[in-house]
């Protein structure tokens, strides 16, 4: 476990450096970290051999963006892990279940009706919570894949139409552009002062997830089994739903909807860790973070100077992956059943 964790932390540091290093302007690795150390220490440890512009790019733009990428990927992967345990279905993902759409619709509603700065997050949370509850209620405890995915499509469609309706109504250019950003997803809006909330939510989510790893394992056995082994399943599920809504909304409010991460990452991580959540949670979160940092970096450099919306990259990878899982039969890691 420690070895795996160490390797993944190392990979994420390398990916992070690459994410800051690559772009329209390439910045040497050493400079990246020299600037960071100087800024963190608030003191000139390394003498400044770079331009002011370079420092702005590294510290004001790319650093927060890479960190936001990590938080987003980590949070979405964690939500995937939670929702998969709640529904006992490995296809569950905030995007497929429509939770991301609900969250985006909530955020856009809050923004269009000018409910103030923080309410965008609040709206995102309410939207996510509402969407999750609708999905859980409509599936009525039957979390078979067909029913789950179809319900997710329907919920997603309803919230997308709501978003479109709002965009049609408002016709205010800058707001519409903002709304479009929520539809396709982007890390472009990353700023230091916006990272704190999402970062804290992710850290709390990981801590709580680690505390609940025994319970999450038992949930995978099915509700009846979990109950006879001593779990109050209804309470636990409600708690996980609220936590997942909070996690989803904290990143959707900043990045918009980015799909499939929550499904792909836990699935691939289980190949390394097995189904047990004690390893699955930390490694999924790091893996998710690396994945989004990587996808964002690709989206920035593939058509320099144009920037591709990151949702295109994740969906281009996620869609085929989704089909592949459906084709080969899905399970919680290990051998096919």
């Amino acid at each position, binding site marked *: 476990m420690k070895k795996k964790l160490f390797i993944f932390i190392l990979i994420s540091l390398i990916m992070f450096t690459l994410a800051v290093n690559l772009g329209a302007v390439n910045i040497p690795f050493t400079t990246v970290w020299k600037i960071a150390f100087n800024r963190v220490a608030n003191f000139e440890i390394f003498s400044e051999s770079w331009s002011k512009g370079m420092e702005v790019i590294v510290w004001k733009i790319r650093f927060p963006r890479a960190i936001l990428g990590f938080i987003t990927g980590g949070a979405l992967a964690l939500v995937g892990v939670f929702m998969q345990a709640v529904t*006992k*279905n*490995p296809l569950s993902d905030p995007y497929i279940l429509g939770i991301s759409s609900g969250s985006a619709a909530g955020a856009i509603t809050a923004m269009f009706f000018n409910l103030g700065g923080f309410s965008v997050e609040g709206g995102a949370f309410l939207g996510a919570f509402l969407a999750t509850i609708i999905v859980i209620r409509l599936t009525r405890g039957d979390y078979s894949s067909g029913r789950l995915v179809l319900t997710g499509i329907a919920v997603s469609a309803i919230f997308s139409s709501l978003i479109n309706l709002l965009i049609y109504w408002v016709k205010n250019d800058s707001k519409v552009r903002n709304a479009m950003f929520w539809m396709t997803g982007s890390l472009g809006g990353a700023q230091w002062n916006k990272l704190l909330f999402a970062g804290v939510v992710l850290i709390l989510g990981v801590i709580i997830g680690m*505390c609940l790893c*025994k319970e999450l*394992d*038992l949930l*995978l*056995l*099915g509700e*009846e*089994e979990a*109950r*006879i*082994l*001593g*779990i*109050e399943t209804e309470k636990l599920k409600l708690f996980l739903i609220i936590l997942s809504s909070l996690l989803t909304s904290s990143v959707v409010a900043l990045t918009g909807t980015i799909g499939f991460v929550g499904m792909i990452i836990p699935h691939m991580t*289980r190949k390394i860790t*097995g*189904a*047990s959540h*004690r390893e699955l949670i930390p490694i999924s979160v790091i893996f998710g973070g690396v994945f989004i940092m990587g996808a964002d970096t690709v989206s920035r450099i593939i058509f320099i100077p144009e920037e591709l919306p990151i949702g295109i990259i994740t969906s281009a990878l996620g869609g085929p992956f989704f089909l592949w899982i459906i084709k080969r039969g*899905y*399970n*919680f*890691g*290990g*051998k096919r*059943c």
Partner: protein
Amino acid sequence: MLEIKNLSYEIEKKNLIENITFDVEKGKFVGIVGPNGSGKSTLLKNVYRTLKGDGKINIKGRCLKVISSKELAKEMAVVSQHGGSEFNFTVCEMVTMGRYPHKGFLGSYNGKDRKIANKAIEKLGLKKYEDRAFLTLSGGERQRALIARALAQEADIIILDEPTNHLDIRYQLQIMEILKSLSVTVIAAVHDMNIASLYCDEIIALKDGKLWGKGVPEDVFTREFFSDVFSVKTEISRHSATQKLSITYLPND
């Protein structure tokens, strides 16, 4: 140990079990018998609280309704008819989960839990499957793993819903032997009447959701019982080696 009083359970106005009353004494091996659809599973599900019917169930003098899930899991281990589907834990992980009710909120499974789990694994002859994924096991091996988990739970009551369903005769007997050797109370739905008479201290017989009779196997297993409840002709004798009842089914003509 366990008192069941006037227990009924209905679904869509149809009584699946009706007015069932019996007590289970500490350390007894109780077999629930009856034809398919006679309410054996419904009765057991009410006891382990997956279904909530009318009537009263007391466990060690306390009403079942007020006990928390975790407390109940410490008193009562359950091996149900179907366990798990798409997860992929190893046998060792599965059995260790039986220790869950004994752990606090933040406690993780420690050396003592592993030791208890290991003992259960060995007892059920699963040592060589320990690191195998649960899903790759055969039906019988899975059933044994689930029983090992129930043992690891160290509860005073073990409830089994047709525990030997998927097992060949060797393991059927072995599991009954193991259950019998434990100083716990066992309540099991049993299909094989010869096995029931060999191992059960007491029989609860159900027909159409009602209690047909109860008592030691010698009292319940009569020719009249088999013709009335199962509509089969039998010849019942006492076996010279086991001194238990031996039931032979006779063709109908």
